[in-house]
């Protein structure tokens, strides 16, 4: 039963994406635009094949993923903790909360000079930028999740003696979980974006660097190939990590 559903889903998805690619290739063949303006799927496929054969894409993916996982992990922990704190404290909300919201609007690129200044030419500088990118999204979402917690749950819990960290860990956190997960998903994409920006810092082997090289060299098929790799990783992470968690949470909460 479950596997049938899964197969259907998969089939639908495959058809959808196959159709997208077919349209794209047809348009490319039709000669509407020159290959150097926007590459054809075949051209991109070649670039992909070459990239994986000579290992640059593999190294790129590995390097970026490592940075991303560490940066995202740090952001998730700090973001959730600070979101929980800000969401429940009026004073924190009014001070740090508004600071967070303000900082959130700063593009990652603003952090580059500061990161260089504080951390020099190191992985730390790159992590800092990634963290600054993802952290604030997760904080904001967690904070909103906390604020949107139905007061009845809080009352019931406090009434049963829940206080301090137990109230946070066992009530506020799980109650806010559906929104926190949304925040984590957004944070993940913020982290990607920031990483791309951070990999501009200096030559660093990551995917962002490959993307930039493609752009610098006006090699559109490299740009699109890297974009596809990024999208693929995004989708895999979503399907393998976020979607199952989301589904489980929704089922549990009775939201399905």
């Amino acid at each position, binding site marked *: 039963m479950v596997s049938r559903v899964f197969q259907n889903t998969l089939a639908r998805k495959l058809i959808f994406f196959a159709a997208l690619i077919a349209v794209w290739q047809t348009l490319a063949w039709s000669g509407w635009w020159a290959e150097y303006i926007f590459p054809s799927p075949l051209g991109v496929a070649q670039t992909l094949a070459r990239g994986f054969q000579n290992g640059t894409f593999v190294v790129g993916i590995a390097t970026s993923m490592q940075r991303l996982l560490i940066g995202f992990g740090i952001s998730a922990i700090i973001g959730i903790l600070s979101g929980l704190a800000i969401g429940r404290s009026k004073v924190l909300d009014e001070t740090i909360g508004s600071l967070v919201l303000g900082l959130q609007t700063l593009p990652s690129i603003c952090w580059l000079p500061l990161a260089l200044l504080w951390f020099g030419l190191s992985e730390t500088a790159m992590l800092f930028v990634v963290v600054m990118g993802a952290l604030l999204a997760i904080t904001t979402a967690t904070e909103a999740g906390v604020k949107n917690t139905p007061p*009845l*749950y809080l*009352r*019931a*819990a*406090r*009434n*049963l*003696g*829940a*206080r301090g960290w*137990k109230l946070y860990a*066992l*009530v506020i956190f*799980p*109650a806010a*979980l559906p929104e926190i997960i949304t925040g984590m998903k957004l944070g993940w994409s913020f982290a990607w974006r920031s990483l791309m920006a951070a990999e501009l810092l200096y030559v660093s082997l990551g995917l962002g660097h490959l993307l930039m090289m493609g752009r610098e060299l006006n090699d559109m098929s490299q740009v699109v190939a890297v974009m596809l790799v990024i999208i693929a990783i995004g989708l895999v992470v979503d399907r393998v990590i976020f979607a199952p968690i989301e589904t489980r*949470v929704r*089922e*549990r*909460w*009775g939201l399905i």
Partner: protein
Amino acid sequence: MKLEIRGVTKTFQSKNGALTALDAIDLDVQPGEFVCLLGPSGCGKSTLLNIIAGLDAPTRGQVRVEGKIVTRPGPDRVMIFQSAALFPWLSVFDNVKFGLNMIGVPKPARQVIARKYLQMVHLADFERASVHELSGGMKQRVAIARALAADPDVLLMDEPFGALDAQTRDLLHDELQTIWTETRKTIVFVTHNVREAVVLGDRVVVFSARPGRIKKIFTIDLPRPRQIESYAVVDLAREIMAELKEDVLASVHDPQVSWLQGMEAQRVGDDVL
């Protein structure tokens, strides 16, 4: 534990102006006493329980528990909410264990206690179910098990048996009386069922319609265990009923429903629900 409610007034501010839900309530509940609160819908019964629980602050006046002014909730005063207020992210079993965890009962003991109370409410088979898989009455029973498992000194029960069929409710009446006789908890019990109040309570406190004031307090001296069908219970219930009815009619000041009064007149001999 002794509860002293002194001049408790609660006014809600809302965009449509202020609404006085409770007006200068004075009430002492002795340690181990079982007090039932009766009153028309919206007269402030839930509000009073919330204030005793420390979940809401009174606008004026105060509640003391063992002489100490209540400022916040504590596991010594556990409430069963009118809507079950179960945690959807926990299984039925974990919901019942929640309060035990809060007061630091060790893990193995939690299992045993939780299971015992789930059995008591006839939901042993559902311990692994999710909250949304329960029927309305089942949810309410889980909430009852959760509160009883926490074994507080003061139990605040807000229409806990409202969603139950008569039979299940009668069984739970008996359970509650047994628990109370054995542990001598202080219980404040809100109900809209007059006979339920008479069967369970040492005293029945009757509220007037909004703004809620204490209208009359009946002391129920009947010997326990009480039978819901005994003449004594029925008679007392009838007496209290008459008291309440008058008040309901007073609250129906609406001309459009004035015919109700006529209708009511011919039902004075009405039995208690």
